[in-house]
């Protein structure tokens, strides 16, 4: 009897080991593949020519993605400019001012916002935001501004929930101590609570940046996808993600390798952002 159950235990453990190894395999498969396909072009054409090059004409041998790196960053910063103030204030409202009823209503509302697919955001952006920008501000409407607005709304749930978690985890004692010393609520918030929640809030911003820089569908619908670095916020632009999505189906040979190199750059940037954010959150917890 005992031998039978021991055997069963061994068997189960074996199966789980296989599962864990398989997971590891799949997790690393995608890394390996993208890096292995992306690296050859870096070696063949040269890292500086790709990352620093300003002309993307892969069928003619130019693989410069510098304008797209810049555009990806611009669009991310733009998204933060729109999303961070709104998101942070919403988080402050939720944690410091709202009652239980509001919380119960707002939290699911946020989840809903986060669940709307990016193509729907892109569509609404094209139908409503692009014409608005074109008619009142000029240009074609397909621009850095329109893209930043839509991305800003898309990263709101991320920023709000992470900022909220950080604010809420500030010990009650801090608030009470500050109020006891005669500070007003706002003074407490801005001099005590926010500074102590600082690293968590920043982590939220950075994760929001990661989401914005990785967004594809909404961006190719709204950004215009022109290859030049935008000269103004009303100019069109192309991001790293857009580059891959627009040309993937049509590319072959070196052109395709160029897209993998774009992917490698994108992956490295996002991994760096994630690492910084997690590092920030871990510091907060350690505190």
């Amino acid at each position, binding site marked *: 009897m005992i031998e039978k159950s021991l055997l069963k235990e061994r068997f189960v453990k074996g199966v789980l080991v296989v599962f864990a190894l398989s997971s590891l395999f799949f997790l690393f498969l995608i890394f390996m593949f993208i890096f292995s396909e992306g690296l050859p072009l870096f070696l063949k054409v040269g890292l500086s020519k790709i990352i620093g090059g300003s*002309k993307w*004409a*892969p*069928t003619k041998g130019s693989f410069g993605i510098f*304008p797209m790196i810049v555009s990806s960053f611009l669009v991310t910063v733009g998204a933060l400019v729109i999303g961070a103030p709104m998101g942070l204030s919403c988080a402050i409202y939720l944690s410091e001012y709202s009652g239980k009823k509001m919380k119960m209503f707002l939290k699911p509302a946020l989840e809903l916002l986060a669940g709307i697919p990016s193509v729907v955001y892109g569509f609404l952006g094209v139908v409503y935001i*692009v*014409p608005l920008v*074109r008619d009142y501000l000029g*240009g*074609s*409407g*397909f621009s850095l501004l329109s893209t930043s607005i839509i991305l800003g709304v898309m990263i709101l749930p991320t920023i709000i929930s992470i900022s909220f978690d950080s604010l809420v985890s500030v010990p009650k004692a801090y608030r009470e101590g500050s109020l006891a010393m005669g500070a007003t609520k706002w003074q407490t918030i801005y001099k005590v609570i926010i500074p102590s929640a600082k690293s968590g809030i920043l982590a939220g911003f950075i994760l929001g940046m990661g989401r914005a820089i990785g967004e594809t569908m909404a961006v*190719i619908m709204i950004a*215009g*996808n*022109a*290859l*030049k670095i935008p000269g103004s916020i009303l*100019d*069109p632009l*192309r991001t790293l993600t857009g580059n891959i*999505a*627009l*040309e993937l*189906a*049509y*590319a*072959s040979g070196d*052109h395709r390798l160029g897209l993998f190199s774009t992917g490698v750059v994108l992956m490295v940037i996002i991994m760096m952002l994630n690492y910084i954010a997690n590092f920030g959150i871990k510091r907060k917890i350690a505190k």
Partner: protein
Amino acid sequence: MLKRLCFLLIIIATFLLSCTGQSHDKAGEKYAITIAGSTSVMPFTEKLAEYFMLGHPQFVINVQGGGSTAGIQAVMNNTVNIGMSSRELKEDERRLNTITICHDGISIIVHPQNPVRSLTLQQVREIFNGRIKNWRELGWIDRRIDAVTREEGSGTRSAFEDLVMKGKEIDDSIMVQDSNGSVKEVVATDPFAMGYISLGLVDQKVQSVAVDGVIPSIKSIKAGRYKIVRPFLYVTNGELDTHAKEFVNFILSRDGQKILKKEGLVGFYD
């Protein structure tokens, strides 16, 4: 509760997986043809397929996009029966067979409310080259021209570059969209936009511009007066099997060509 949910999930999954067995059991009865490639040719192939399948219910024709290059690649790898291309084959693709199913004009389009109706080829070239930037230079208001092009690798862009740009590069500041349909959408909604699409797709949402005095139409293409024309090709690897051949023969027949003509393409018969 967990157990019940798992059970339910497994039942649904088994059902879905069992569906997959079906088409193979009936393999003898259904003829499957996969066609992939140019997004320009795709809507027309889809129309032809819809019509053909009505009269021949044992055929299942699967039409995909992906672009001329992807379609040609897929045929080379034998992952599809027929590849669609809206451009001529390149050097390293020459070993494949091509069947011209019709011709298609590339129309330069603007918004219906745009008063500019006629341009020279040179002007079109300079607009997409970035030399002409403002509608003012063409006799309209002081507003930047929102030009739109197709992406690198597109058959339509290739043809446009050969027939219109003639060596001059399309400027980097020009917007890019990845299908005829989306270029048309941009031009249909932005009064200051200009793009180029398949003549077969032009409808009341956009306006064709006359090039060197010639308005693009089936008539002017057949007469040889409108010159921005490219062939729609079906690309195959070696001989087609009998069933795929049946479909292609239909397309080349009067009935098939009639459908294409109705869609605005230039067929072989009048």
